[in-house]
């Protein structure tokens, strides 16, 4: 393996945990990642030595808190390749809020009845429901890219779907299939049709190199808690000129230039989109998480997780053959470390329960992707997903657990 996982693991206190007298094997990073000690400590230290509300304060800790918070934009922006972090990085509470921000602010301003937004059937509900709410409210048309049997986006009718569309909103990596979508090509196609492109980076930003500039996208969303950071923070990135033209989303303190009884004047981005006291400690934690990832190297992480994925896919196939289906593409460039499993004759809930008994954490269910589950024809899958702290020994325990499950239900 390309990363020295044994050493890295020492950075993650939660991985020391025993469950049911076994080593905890965490295979649920697609749901939420485990934060390294440095991230936890950065937030504790912030609360113990600095905490104050940001902006407007002139005293020492208020100034420091403000500087830490604003500096986080630079760290996040640097990680994404954002040209103007200070103006383009908006802190939200999670990916879901980021996409709702886009739908409310950009959507209500730029879309009217009959306008089309294109998504895919492999989207997380976070990238479906906000558009359905807009469809209900203002009558936009929501179009779906389909998925092939191997789990790839079907691009044959892309041009047709983009015809007259105003936005393509698409995940860079499926949280169920692991499919990595061709964002650069999708951006080109969208732009060729005069549409903008929003990328749901919740799964890709933690595991694949991101460069908003070279992939030429317009908007990107992701969550802190999936990128080794804390809960309670998300990121919305938008091209500066686009953000400048967008009306506010939530109203309140911090997003205004002036308020009179008869109206208000909105501040410039990114403040315009950050109403109320922001997630300050969480921004400190998130930027520490990104520094940690940068210290290891996102390319190295991708290589490691790619190897793990290949190893796991091969081992499952060797041991279980047709008794286990792993949904999604084969190992390779277009597959991230997410394995949605169906074990013949056993419901995902039972798989996950028995895996838990050997310490393995996988998630059963529809993974907030019901349209995709319907396409796959399964009510639920048991999803194992990798992070940089996983290694082949984790795969071994997974296999042991799957074997035990198969035996119990034989």
């Amino acid at each position, binding site marked *: 393996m390309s990363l020295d996982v044994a050493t890295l693991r020492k950075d993650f206190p939660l991985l020391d945990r025993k469950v049911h007298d076994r080593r905890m094997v965490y295979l649920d990073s697609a749901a939420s990642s485990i934060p390294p000690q440095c991230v936890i400590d950065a937030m504790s230290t912030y609360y113990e030595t600095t905490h104050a509300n940001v902006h407007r304060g002139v005293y020492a800790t208020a100034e420091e808190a403000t500087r830490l918070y604003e500096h986080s934009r630079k760290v996040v922006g640097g990680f994404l390749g954002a040209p103007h972090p200070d103006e383009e990085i908006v802190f939200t509470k999670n990916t879901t809020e980021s996409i709702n921000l886009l739908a409310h602010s950009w959507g209500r301003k730029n879309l009217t009845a009959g306008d089309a937004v294109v998504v895919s059937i492999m989207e997380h509900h976070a990238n479906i429901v906000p558009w359905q709410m807009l469809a209900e409210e203002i009558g936009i048309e929501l179009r779906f890219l389909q998925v092939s049997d191997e789990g790839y986006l079907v691009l044959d009718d892309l041009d047709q779907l983009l015809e007259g569309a105003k936005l393509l909103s698409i995940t860079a990596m499926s949280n169920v299939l692991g499919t990595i979508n061709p964002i650069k090509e999708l951006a080109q196609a969208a732009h060729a049709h005069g549409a903008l492109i929003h990328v749901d980076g919740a799964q890709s930003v933690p595991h694949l190199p991101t460069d908003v500039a070279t992939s030429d996208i317009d908007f990107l969303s992701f969550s802190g808690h999936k990128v080794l950071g804390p809960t309670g923070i998300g990121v919305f990135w938008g091209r500066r000129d686009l953000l400048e033209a967008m009306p506010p989303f939530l109203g309140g303190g911090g997003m205004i230039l002036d308020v009179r009884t008869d109206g208000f004047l909105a501040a410039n981005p990114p403040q315009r989109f950050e109403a109320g006291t922001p997630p300050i400690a969480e921004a400190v934690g998130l930027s520490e998480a990104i520094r940690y990832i940068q210290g290891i190297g996102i390319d190295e992480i991708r290589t490691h997780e790619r190897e793990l994925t290949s190893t796991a896919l091969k081992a499952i196939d060797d041991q279980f053959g047709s008794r286990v289906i792993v949904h999604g593409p084969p190992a390779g460039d277009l597959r991230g470390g997410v394995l949605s499993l169906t074990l013949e004759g*056993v419901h995902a809930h*039972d798989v996950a*329960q*028995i895996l838990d008994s050997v310490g393995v954490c996988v998630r059963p269910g529809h993974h907030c992707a*019901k349209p995709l589950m319907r396409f796959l024809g399964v*009510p*639920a899958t048991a999803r194992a997903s990798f992070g940089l702290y996983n290694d082949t020994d984790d795969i071994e325990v997974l296999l042991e657990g799957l074997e035990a499950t198969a035996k119990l239900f034989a």
Partner: protein
Amino acid sequence: MADLEELYREIILDHYRSPRNRGELASPPALRAEGFNPLCGDEIVVTLDVNGGIVDDIKIAGQGCSISQSSASMMSAAVKGKNISEVRKTIATFKTLMSVHEAQLEESDTPEPEPIDLNALGELAALQGVVKFPVRIKCATLSWNTLAQTLDDAGV
């Protein structure tokens, strides 16, 4: 692993592998209700023929995990041929079995509920291992809630 064996007792797996009363009765005349567990996607369809206050026939359709399926199967066996008030009582007893422990797990101050007569539950008592797995309680109660719903809807 002791807990796991309590969860997956042989009789539960047996009902899962060979569900009793599987299918759907023609409705109408049969009473019908659908149950749904949004967290895991389990779906259950309960249809039952009630004649003269007696559950003459009951069938279960839908999909779900071993706990929800076996609970439904056992339920169908337990209520078939019973009169409505017995059925209601069985539902209440079963739900108490499941909620006792829910309350205990949360260390709440709610008073200890009445003790349950496990013998009266027969095979169903096998499901008591579920309460050690709070997430699965909803699996076990899905069919029962759906049955109660069917009776409520029909006003019987």
